[in-house]
């Protein structure tokens, strides 16, 4: 029996991600106990940690700071596999331009920026914000979490802010929406996605399955 903690800091729907990993564990015949929790002791004992997030970064960071979630994530990523999703990924960065500017956890180098009102594709067509729907993800480098996921697979995104980092070596996947953006980051025990694997049907479930079998460090 292995354990997985989905960190619950009171923001948004964690049902989806918990249900998806439980489903994947059943399919793979893995004995897995999933806890959706903010309890530091349960998170410290879990074999794997998922750091999700939806909503506005200011509210998320307020709760993350209040509940000391940053410390839990920092500790977990030293020793165990951690998967950060969407705003969870953005919270790992140094700073976000959302809500007039918010300091984030600074666990991964990089910043979070707004797509802008006048986002256009190569043909000059006006692009809607949020970036919502299924976009192709180019695998920027090999990683155990990409195993069995065809390069260029579509994943489900919904976000108005995107990540920029100067550390190309940390970029695991990219997508294009008016501009090239980071779709996934890999840094030792952490794998982080801007898209929602729990909502990305086959490709997403495959990635979650890979996470459940990953021992950390690529």
């Amino acid at each position, binding site marked *: 029996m292995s354990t997985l903690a989905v960190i619950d800091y009171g923001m*948004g*729907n964690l*049902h*989806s991600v918990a*249900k*998806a990993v439980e*489903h994947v564990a059943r399919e793979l015949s893995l004995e897995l106990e999933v806890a959706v929790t903010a309890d530091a002791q349960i998170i410290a004992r879990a074999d794997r940690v998922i750091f999700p997030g*939806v*909503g*506005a970064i200011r509210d998320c960071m307020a709760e993350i700071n209040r509940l000391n979630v940053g410390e839990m994530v920092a500790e977990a990523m030293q020793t165990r596999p951690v998967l950060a999703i969407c705003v969870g990924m953005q919270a790992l960065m140094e700073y976000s331009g959302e809500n007039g500017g918010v300091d984030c956890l600074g666990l991964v180098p990089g910043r979070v920026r707004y797509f802008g*009102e006048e986002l256009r*594709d190569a043909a000059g067509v*006006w*692009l*809607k*914000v*949020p*970036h*919502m*729907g*299924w*976009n*192709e993800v180019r695998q920027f480098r090999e990683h155990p979490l990409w195993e069995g996921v065809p390069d260029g697979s*579509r994943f*489900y*995104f*919904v*976000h*108005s802010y995107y990540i920029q980092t100067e550390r190309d070596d940390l970029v695991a996947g990219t*997508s*294009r*929406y008016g501009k090239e953006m980071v779709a996934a980051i890999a840094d030792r025990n952490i794998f982080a996605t801007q898209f929602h694997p*729990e*909502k*990305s*049907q086959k490709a*997403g*479930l495959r990635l979650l399955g890979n996470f459940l079998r990953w021992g950390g460090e690529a």
Partner: protein
Amino acid sequence: MGLARRIIPCLDCDNGRVVKGVRFVDIRDAGDPVEVSKRYCDEGADEVTFLDIAASHEGRATTVETVRDIAAQVFIPLTVGGGIRTLDDIRMMLNAGADKVAINTAAVFDPPFVRAASERFGSQCIVVAVDAKRVADGAESKWEIFTHGGRKPTGIDAVEWCSRMVDYGAGEILLTSMDRDGTKEGFDNQLNRVVSSTVRVPVIASGGVGALEHLAEGVLEGGVDAVLAASIFHFREFTIEQAKRHMAARGIEVRL
């Protein structure tokens, strides 16, 4: 290549069964919503929308139960609408596993509710459903918001309304043409075009799909980001996969 246009099958449900539909005289039973959702997901649906058409107080528990069952088995985004009037209604649906909620009538009678909802839960999960009816044709075309299944005019201009809802925090607009809904004659693409080129958030076209080409027209003529249909999928006239192949053949980027 980039973002794909979405195809969203819609399940109109009444007391735990899929029916079609709100404005049809005879309501035909089209099955169990959980089974139907799974089938759509397997066929490649990009999202599923679940509308509780009766939205009665008594039926609410059944709806929550159904949403929970769908969410446990369908790993694509799920939108739930029908009778969403309070922040508690939204919380209940999100906790049951919905990713987004569609607010319709409550937005018309209490517009600040949309602002409160998006501030509390984030714009990404707030869809405002707009029922628009044409009140003037030609170059001066105008559409008005109607409530009560298209029976009651409100005097509100539909295009201005959509912009206002986006300012209030709607993350997406579900735009239904009341003139076309149930007709199988295709979308009102003039309406789709005007709204889609006005608001900065994604627009889902709804109402009138009777053929696969109608879906393609929504994108090519209406300029919408997603197309929604109910009856053509329920009775297996077409599969989602057929719909996607048709759109791809018309040069539209889809997830295959």
